[in-house]
């Protein structure tokens, strides 16, 4: 009997190490094989949870509070599915994207493996300190991917990212230390009944520290300063991975703690993330509309789209709000990966990354522009995309509770998204002669981007199944 839960962690660790042993630049095939298996495992786990409810695994057979528990519910299953379904096409894309024997790819595959292992371990852990270790695994691997083989600007962006990540995880770690001091355990399951509304002051401070640290790692406005340079200067496959998955990991953890052990404390606090989220939508979209660089535009769009995730916090009393948040995380994950991949194709083909330089490109790369547009449809929230479903659920939840201005923010954000998406499309569809010589790009690049973009739109039609899976785990 294969337990998918454990193999989702062990498998990427194994192929990452194997890729390292094979030597610099090697390991692409191992990685792709591993990722295919992981995708199957994630589906298997989702089926099991959908049928039998949440799963728990006591590592070492000890059980909390002495040992570490791994736990999977509907939320973890959705995030795991998202991670594996983005990672596999991205791996195919990356293999075609990087010229062999370039310095930036010497340790690309082992780094990807450790990143995936960290993400999967994070989505499955039910232990605050273990979560800290997984956060560091994800954070360091992400920084390494940004920095690898880059020039001065790229290394500077990686350093800024590293210090933000370390500041965030240190704050989280202090929170864990205080929680252990107050309750004598770091297990989420054990903590849940202990942590009540009349908790000692130190527990409130611990919660605040963990929240602030994780918000910094999620790059929520105004803690977003590190994200645009890091996501824009990294190679396209890395940017895709960072925007689609890495920032979602700390968001997932905020959600997990907010709905789990810290639920008795967060009542009055819920408006803070919502307001910051609204700020992120306006500021991020505005910057995306202004920036002259293509990848910077996509990166600022990530800042804006992350804002939606935090609009749900005052509404979490209704189940629709959680569904909206998770749907937005999935929709943005698929669409943003596709958008960065398409941007990578455009940059590779034209040899430059200015939006203005894209004039007339659509005639030469129709499939890529189509993928960019499809991903844009999801980001704008047009039907029938998954982004539409997410916004629909959000607006429904907001209106049901009388918070019409949250609905207004969501609608305004969609219009702003149209602003920056059409900026690119209009330029590319200009009936102008192409300003740059268009280099040939491997077909794999175009088709993998197309696949993810299509998935982000079509998922809107299968949203019910995803919502059913999410619900399957919510009852413990």
């Amino acid at each position, binding site marked *: *009997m294969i*337990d998918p839960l*454990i193999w989702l962690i*062990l498998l990427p*660790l*194994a192929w990452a*190490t194997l890729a*390292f*042993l094979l*030597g*610099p630049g090697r390991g692409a095939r191992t990685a792709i094989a591993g990722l295919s298996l992981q995708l199957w495992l994630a589906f298997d786990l989702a089926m099991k949870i959908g049928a039998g409810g949440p799963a728990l*695994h*006591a*590592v*070492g*057979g*000890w059980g909390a*509070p*002495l*040992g*570490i528990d*791994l736990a999977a519910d509907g939320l973890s299953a959705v995030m795991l599915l998202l991670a594996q379904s983005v990672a596999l096409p991205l791996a195919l894309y990356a293999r075609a994207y990087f010229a062999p024997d370039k310095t930036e790819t*010497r*340790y*690309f595959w*082992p*780094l990807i493996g*450790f990143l995936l*292992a960290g993400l999967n*371990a994070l989505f499955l852990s039910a232990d605050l*300190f*273990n979560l800290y*270790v*997984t956060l*560091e*695994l994800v954070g*360091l*691997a992400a*920084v*390494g991917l940004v*920095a*690898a*083989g880059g020039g001065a600007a790229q*290394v500077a962006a990686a350093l800024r990212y590293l210090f933000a990540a370390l500041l965030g995880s240190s704050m989280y770690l202090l929170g864990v230390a205080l929680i*252990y*001091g*107050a*309750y*004598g*355990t770091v297990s989420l399951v*054990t903590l849940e009944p*202990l942590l009540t509304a009349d908790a*000692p*002051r*130190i527990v409130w*401070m611990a919660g605040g520290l963990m929240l602030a640290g994780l918000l910094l790692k999620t790059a929520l406005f105004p803690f977003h300063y590190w994200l645009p340079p890091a996501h824009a200067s990294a190679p396209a496959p890395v940017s895709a991975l960072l925007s689609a998955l890495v920032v979602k990991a700390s968001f997932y953890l905020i959600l997990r703690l907010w709905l789990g052990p810290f639920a008795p404390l967060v009542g009055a606090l819920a408006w803070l993330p919502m307001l910051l989220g609204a700020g992120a939508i306006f500021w991020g979209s505005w910057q995306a509309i202004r920036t002259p660089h293509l990848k910077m535009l996509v990166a600022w769009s990530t800042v804006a789209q992350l804002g939606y995730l935090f609009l749900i916090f005052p509404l979490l009393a209704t189940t629709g709000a959680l569904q909206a948040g998770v749907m937005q995380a999935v929709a943005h994950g698929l669409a943003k990966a596709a958008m960065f991949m398409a941007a990578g194709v455009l940059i590779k083909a034209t040899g430059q990354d200015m939006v203005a330089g894209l004039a007339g490109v659509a005639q030469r790369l129709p499939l890529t522009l189509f993928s960019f547009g499809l991903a844009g449809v999801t980001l704008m929230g047009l039907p029938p995309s998954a982004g539409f479903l997410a916004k629909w659920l959000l607006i429904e939840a907001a209106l049901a509770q009388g918070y019409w201005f949250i609905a207004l923010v969501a609608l305004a954000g969609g219009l702003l998204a149209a602003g920056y998406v059409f900026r690119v499309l209009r330029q590319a569809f200009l009936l102008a002669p192409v300003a740059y010589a268009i280099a040939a790009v491997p077909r794999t690049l175009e088709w993998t981007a197309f696949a993810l973009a299509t998935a982000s739109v079509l998922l809107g039609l299968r949203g019910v199944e995803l919502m059913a899976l999410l619900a399957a785990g919510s009852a413990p």
Partner: protein
Amino acid sequence: MKTAAIVIGAAAFAATMIAALLDLPPSAIHLPRLVDANLPVSGVTHPVTAVLLNFRGYDTMLEIGVLLLALLIVLAVGTHDGADAAPTADPMLQTFARLAASLMALVAVYLLWAGARQPGGAFQAGAVLAAAAVLLHLAGVLPAWREPGALLRSGLAAGFLVFLFVAMALLSQGTLLQYPHAAAGSLILLIEFALTISLGLILAGLFLFLSGGQGSDS
């Protein structure tokens, strides 16, 4: 202005937290009792080693992953522009360094062996091994490292791989990292042995790769 705000903020934070620490009631759960109660079946008699390699062994496995990952990134980032001017020292110093390094290797073996019963273990032993390598480098006996060959890569990954293999092998019984009773002690010793070698190599590598990549390029 910004400086003043941050300094005042940090001071206020510290003051609030200290006040909150001072009136914290005792915790509801007392884990040391649980550790003591389960120590006899853990395979070792030193509580910290029991937590590190058995009760919370999964943390330790991921943590070795983090360390290996850091080394990978150092390799991935590393520039190879500087010529490695091997530091030359006088033969007396070299002899002394060799002697000290062998002594340190002995200390490492002792620390590893003692870890099951008293303070010590793979981490400390590995760190001492790494220190010995750094010493040899500084004395000019051991040159800085460049691109690692297959053998060195295997050594660097060995500790993590053994840990991973044990975890996978034990999965046949159904639970991750659940050591069978009788074999717990020897399995932990096996893992610790591999960890010591790899930790020593990785920690030394963090220094020697950095030093070789960019150090003496003046």
